[in-house]
């Protein structure tokens, strides 16, 4: 029987500083982990502990992956100290991915906040890999300040020119600085005046709990139905395999039944936004 708790030895290939509190780690596991956009992995510092993260790189890249991590707790602080050449452990992938086949032929709205852009980046790269399958993609990104915007070279530059007809962006910051010429306001403000046929659209939201809550309510307000909204729930996914009990969400475990949930499936559950 395979031991699901055993991590795969993984080399840190590169570290990119995305913002003052967020770094992206490029990793090469000894045994490739084939994840789908939205699934998560457990990353460990040997002998210290592990934490769950959703890879942010393209699921089509076979042997390497990237994970974007905000310094938030004990393990993430240790991860932030990692250098090129260090060894970490990975296990997974776990959980349910974004159901791409349900998005085909649709106008797709991505709503991301802060480090919540990480899973959406993997999703965005999967969508644009086969962009002809989808009608359009509108990516709404919110960050606290211009320096908190992650994947700057992609979001503000490279991705803007991918497919100008089908792929569009709305970038906003909560508070601007002198360098910022773009939109100012919470990410919910980018959801006004959507040029989208709502009947043929799905929206995918990922970000801090408070942002997810208000973005979801806003989407309902502008006319999305709960079954058209997909959320990535951040819970304490410790074992990753539905056994340790920490990430229970009503009758679900975020680790095996999620982390991607359709809103109508969980909207009745207390505690989802906390």
């Amino acid at each position, binding site marked *: *029987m*395979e*031991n*699901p*708790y*055993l*991590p795969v*030895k993984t080399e840190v290939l590169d570290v990119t500083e995305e913002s003052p509190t967020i770094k992206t780690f490029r990793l090469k596991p000894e045994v490739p982990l084939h994840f789908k956009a939205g699934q998560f992995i457990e990353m*460990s*510092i*040997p*002998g*210290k*502990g*592990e*934490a769950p993260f959703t890879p942010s790189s393209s699921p089509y890249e076979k042997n390497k992956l990237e994970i974007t991590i*905000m310094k*938030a*707790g*004990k*393990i*993430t602080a240790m991860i932030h100290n990692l250098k090129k050449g260090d*060894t970490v*452990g990975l296990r997974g992938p776990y959980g349910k991915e974004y159901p791409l086949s349900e998005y085909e032929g649709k106008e797709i709205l991505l709503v991301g906040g802060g480090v919540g852009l990480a899973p959406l980046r993997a999703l965005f790269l999967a969508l644009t890999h086969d962009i002809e399958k989808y009608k359009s993609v509108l990516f709404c990104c919110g960050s606290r300040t211009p320096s908190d915007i992650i994947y700057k070279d992609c979001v503000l530059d490279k991705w803007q020119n991918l497919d100008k007809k089908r792929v569009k962006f709305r970038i906003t910051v909560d508070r601007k600085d002198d360098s910022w010429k773009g939109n100012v306001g919470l990410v919910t403000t980018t959801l006004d005046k959507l040029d989208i046929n709502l009947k043929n659209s799905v929206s995918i939201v990922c970000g*801090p*709990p408070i942002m997810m809550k208000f973005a979801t309510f806003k989407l309902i307000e502008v006319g999305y139905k709960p079954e058209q909204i997909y959320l990535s729930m*951040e*819970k*304490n996914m*410790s*074992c990753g*395999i*539905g*056994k*340790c*009990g*920490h*990430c*229970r969400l*009503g*009758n679900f475990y975020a680790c095996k039944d999620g982390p991607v949930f359709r809103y109508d499936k969980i909207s009745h559950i*207390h*505690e*989802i936004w*906390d």
Partner: protein
Amino acid sequence: MDLYFINKPNLDRLVKSLLKTYKIFAPVKSDNNRFYKKVGEDGLGESVIGEIRAVEPIKSFYFPARTKIAEYFSSKEDSDAKEKPIAIIGAKSCDLVSFKVMDYVYGQEPFRDPSYVLKREEGLIISSDCTSYGETCFCVAIDIMPYPTEGFDINLSELEGGYVVEAGSGKGEKIIRDYFKLFQSAEPYVEKRNANRKKLKEDLLEHVKKSNIPPKDSIQKAFKSKFDSTLWEEVSKTCVECGACNMICPACHCFIIMDQKNEDKFERLRMWDSCLLMSFARVAGGANPRKLLAHRMRNRFDKKFNFFQDTIGRFGCTGCGRCTEACPGKIDIREVLSKF
């Protein structure tokens, strides 16, 4: 299943023979409580086969409080020598019912828990009827009988001079076949066994009556109706967040993973965890869906009487009453259920 009878000296002979294959544990009595003790070459000795459940839950053997679940980044093979499989003698009905929860959680595909599954597959359960009940016992109130009905390899019903023996699995049948000379016909004893069972069940039903526990089939609905009530503040008033109820519960399965360095390798440990502790559901970013103790208390009952009812069609509670015995805040699960 066929029934047999085994007298006490022959049971002792059987157990001594099983020592070749199994590491055997049976309850012994101390200070009016029962604790599992390893059975040695001298056999069952002072072991108590009847009476009531032991203090410690049976999960302790299959899902120990602290287990090494992985050794990683080491060039050497796993250093632990393989141990003999475990046989438990004198497990009670409530213990067997707890396996319904544990087997579901740890045996669930696609990621089965290797250490638990192996122990269960290789292990042997020789259960026994309760011959009395404890003050906090309430199994019959949730339709669990004080005698095993399933989930055992062999069951023993204690009578004067010996035991009515029932095989409950192929493994149990094989043992009876292999040691057939130790067994007699059960015929003269079955009526007495059945009468004992009926009497204990009736006595226990009478005992739980005063707790006013709602009928089993109404408990889940009643829990849902109390979700937003002040009951949970009231119940948690004397909770000191020690987690004793979780540790002692045979159906509480939650654990925390801890990593440590051990010489030239790293070890991953799995340790029992408690959902009543503040940090249980907290995430690194600081969000915590159950910041309030009242919500954590509610969560414990939610998991037991709502989640598992929906998930596996039965409660994550066996009516063993251990949590009531263990709670320093005198929180009595029967009393909480009576307020549903």
